[in-house]
C-alpha cells in the first residue's frame, strides 16, 4: 500500500513539487498501478530466472575508438546559464 508519505518521499528524490491535491491523486494512481501489477503474483515463477532485460540480446559493444566531439556552442546551447565554456548551476552541498 502506497501512502502519502511514500509519494512525498519519491517526489523529494525526483525534485518534484506537488500540491496536496496532486499528492492525493498520485497516491491513488500509484496504488491502482501496483494493484494491477499484483496480477503477476498469481503466476507460478518458480522455474523462471529473474529478467534483467526484456530484449533477447547480449554482448553488444563497440571498439575503443575516439569519435567526434560536439562543438562548445552546441554543447552549451541548452545550458540554462553559462560562464565561459562552463555550465553554471546552483551550488548543491
Amino acid at each position, binding site marked *: 500500500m502506497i501512502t502519502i508519505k511514500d509519494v512525498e518521499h519519491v517526489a523529494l*528524490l525526483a525534485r518534484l513539487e506537488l500540491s496536496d491535491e496532486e499528492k492525493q491523486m498520485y497516491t491513488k494512481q500509484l496504488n491502482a498501478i501496483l494493484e494491477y501489477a499484483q496480477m503477476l503474483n498469481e503466476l507460478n515463477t518458480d522455474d523462471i530466472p529473474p529478467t534483467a532485460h526484456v530484449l533477447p540480446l547480449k*554482448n553488444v559493444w*563497440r*571498439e575503443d575508438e575516439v569519435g*567526434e566531439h560536439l562543438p562548445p556552442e552546441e554543447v*552549451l546551447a541548452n545550458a540554462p546559464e553559462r560562464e565561459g565554456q562552463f555550465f553554471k*548551476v546552483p551550488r*548543491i552541498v
Partner: protein
Amino acid sequence: MTDYETIIGLEVHVELKTKSKIFCPSTTEFGGDPNTHVCPVCLGLPGVLPVLNKKVLEYAIRAALALNCEIAEYSKFDRKNYYYPDLPKNYQISQYDLPLARNGYLNIEVNGQTKRIGITRIHMEEDAGKLIHQGTIATSPYSLVDYNRTGVPLIEIVSEPDMRSPEEARAYLEKLKAIIQYTGVSDCKMEEGSLRCDANVSVRPRGSREFGTKTEIKNMNSFKALQRALAYEVERQIAVLQEGGRIVQETRTWDENKGITLPMRSKEEAHDYRYFPEPDLVPLVIDRQWVEEIRATLPELPDERRNRYIKHYDLPAYDATVLTATKEMADYFEECVALYPNAKAVSNWMMGDLSRLLNAHNMDITRCKVSPRQLTDMLKLMDRGTISGKIAKTVFEEMFATGKDPEQIVQEKGLVQITDEGAIAAVVEEVLAGNAKVVEDYLKGKDRAFGFLVGQVMKATRGKANPELVNRLLKEKLHSS
C-alpha cells in the same frame, strides 16, 4: 580502559586507460578546455543510446584477474539515481547486484608477516564530471560544471573489512596501486584523480564479534593523507565511545590542512539510489575462453617479481619489496642489472641516493634524468677506482640535476680520484708535519687521532685521494717516524 580494535574497509575507484569513454566515443584525455571532450551521449541528451566500449570490459577483467577475482558468467549494468549536477542524466550507469567480479584478494606485508585482504567485488561504472567552485564549496555562490570527465571508465574495487590499522590500509592501497599499474590498465595517479579512495572505519571493543557503527571518510588524495585521516578518525571514534557517546553513521571529509575529519552536511535520503537495471544496455554473458586469453597475457605481478628478485638477484626481502613497489622502479632496476651485474650495488643506489633525491624533488622515477646506463657507468667508474664512493655521491647529485654523463662530470669538475702514491705521500707528509701534537697523541695510543689525520688528507685533496691508499700511507709514515 577498554582496548579497541579498528576495522577498515576501502572502496577504490580506478580510471581505466582506454582511448574513448565507457559508453561513447568521446576522448578520455585528461584536461582539455572545459566541455570539449563531450558528445550527445555523455551529455545525456534525449534520444541517445550508450554502447559499451569492449576495451573497458577487457581491462576490467584484466584487473579483476590480477586481483584473484572470479569473473561473473552473467553481468549487467544498473542505474544509480541521484540528483547532483556532476552527471547530466541524474543517474550514473553502474553495476549493482550482478557485478563483473567477486571474491578476490591481495597480500600485504605487515611487520614482516604476509596478510591476505579480501576483495568483495569489482564493478564497472562511468565517472562523473567536475564541479568548480570559487573558494570553497561552502562559500561559492554557484557551481561551474565541466563534463569532460563524465563517462570516463572506472572500476570500483571494494575490499572486505579486513584491515585492522591505518598502516594496513595504506599497505593495501599501495599494493592495489602496484598491481593495477603492472596490468597496464590504469596510470593510478592519485594526484590526477585516476586512483581515488574512500574508507569505511569503525572500532569495537577487542574481542567483540559485532562491528561498531562505521563512518565513511572521503577526500584523501595521497597515501599519507589516507593513513593520517584514518589514524585521526580511529582516535576520534574511541574518544567518543570512552566518553559514553555514540558514533553517528555519516560521511566525513578529510581536511588536509587542519589534519581532522569533518562531517559533510548529510544529504537527507540521498542514499536512496533506487537502482534498477539499465534498460539501454543489454546484459553481458562473458565468454570463458576470452577470460582465459586475458589471464594468459597477465604480466609478472609485484609478488612474483619480488620473489624472483630475492631468488635470482639474491636481494634482501626488504630491497626486493621496495624495488618492485612500482613497475617503473622495477623496470629501471632491471635495465641497470642488465648493464651491470652487481644487483646489490644497484639496489643500494636506487634505494639510497636516487630515492632520496626523487623524494626531495617530489618526482617519480619516470621523470628522473639519470638513465640506467648513466647510473651503471658511474658504478663502473667506482669499480675502476676513477672515483671514490664519497665522490660518487657528489657526481650522482650532479647527474640527477643535469642529466650529464658521469665521465663528463668527473672531467669537468676534476673529480678523478688521486691514486698516484707519490702525490698522496706528499700530502701525508705535509699533514703529519702540520699536526705534530695529533701525531704524538696517536703514538701514545689514541686511535681516534688517526681518523682526524685521514680527514685532513682528504680535506687537502678535496676528497679525491683514494681512501685505502691514504690509510696505508699514513700508517706506514706514522710507524716509521
